[in-house]
């Protein structure tokens, strides 16, 4: 149970939502798997990481209050796990391009070559910049929330983003053979 304060300052006990593990898995599998895939670019490794995160969720579920809380928890745990994994595991992309999973919302068009190149370049960023970029552009989190989830100063998040974007522009420019194309 949690307490909510009304305008009359009388606490009302609000029943915690009963969270079903299976529902949580099916609802958030894309979130967790996408983060892992964006970071590792390896199908098998991404699935292993995603499975581990959900098994950890099972233990933690009684302490979580709501579906939103679950999503936030999953983002935070996945992000920290990806950063830890990067320290022990070398990135060895093993997923052929034709096996790259489909986008969950393909209606917005992007040059597939550009998209794949960007994904590869993001995955080549050092941690924690890589995870910060994923949280910013995949999960649309603002720097304050990213800083809170990763337990680092917001200034570090902003400077990491700035450096990562500069690096991506530089690499894209080299690949394109052009300069100042990317803004």
């Amino acid at each position: 149970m949690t307490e909510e304060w009304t305008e009359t300052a009388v606490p009302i006990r609000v029943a915690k939502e009963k969270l079903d593990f299976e529902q949580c898995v099916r609802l958030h599998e894309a979130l967790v798997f996408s983060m892992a895939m964006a970071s590792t670019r390896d199908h098998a490794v991404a699935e292993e990481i995603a499975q581990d995160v959900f098994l950890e969720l099972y233990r933690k579920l009684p302490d979580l209050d709501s579906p939103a809380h679950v999503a936030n928890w999953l983002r935070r745990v996945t992000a920290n796990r990806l950063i830890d994994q990067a320290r022990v595991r070398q990135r060895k992309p093993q997923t052929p391009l034709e096996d790259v999973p489909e986008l969950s919302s393909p209606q917005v068009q992007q040059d597939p070559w550009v998209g794949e190149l960007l994904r590869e370049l993001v995955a080549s960023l050092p941690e924690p910049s890589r995870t910060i970029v994923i949280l910013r552009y995949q999960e649309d989190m603002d720097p304050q929330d990213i800083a809170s989830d990763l337990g680092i100063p917001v200034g570090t998040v902003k400077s990491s983003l700035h450096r990562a974007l500069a690096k991506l522009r530089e690499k894209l420019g080299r690949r394109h053979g052009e300069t100042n194309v990317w803004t």
Partner: protein
Amino acid sequence: MDLENELRLALRRTTAPAGFADRVLARNRRRRSSGLFWATGVAAAALIGFFTYQRYQQMAEEQAGRQAVLALRIAAEKLNYARAKVLRISTEN
């Protein structure tokens, strides 16, 4: 080209592999079963240990009791022997 916009497009969520949720649920069930198995084993070992100790205590107490009875018998026989000797001496006198 707007890099940030292109990043948002490139990093859109992908679908999880087919059967992913089922594999997670199956793995969780297996993990819970093995956890229950070990917990049952530990509980059973603790119970067996407890009852073994209790039986040992009981046997030790029984042994102590038998030894006490034996000691009393020896003391009683010695007393009887001494009494008999005292009686013989007093009769002879």
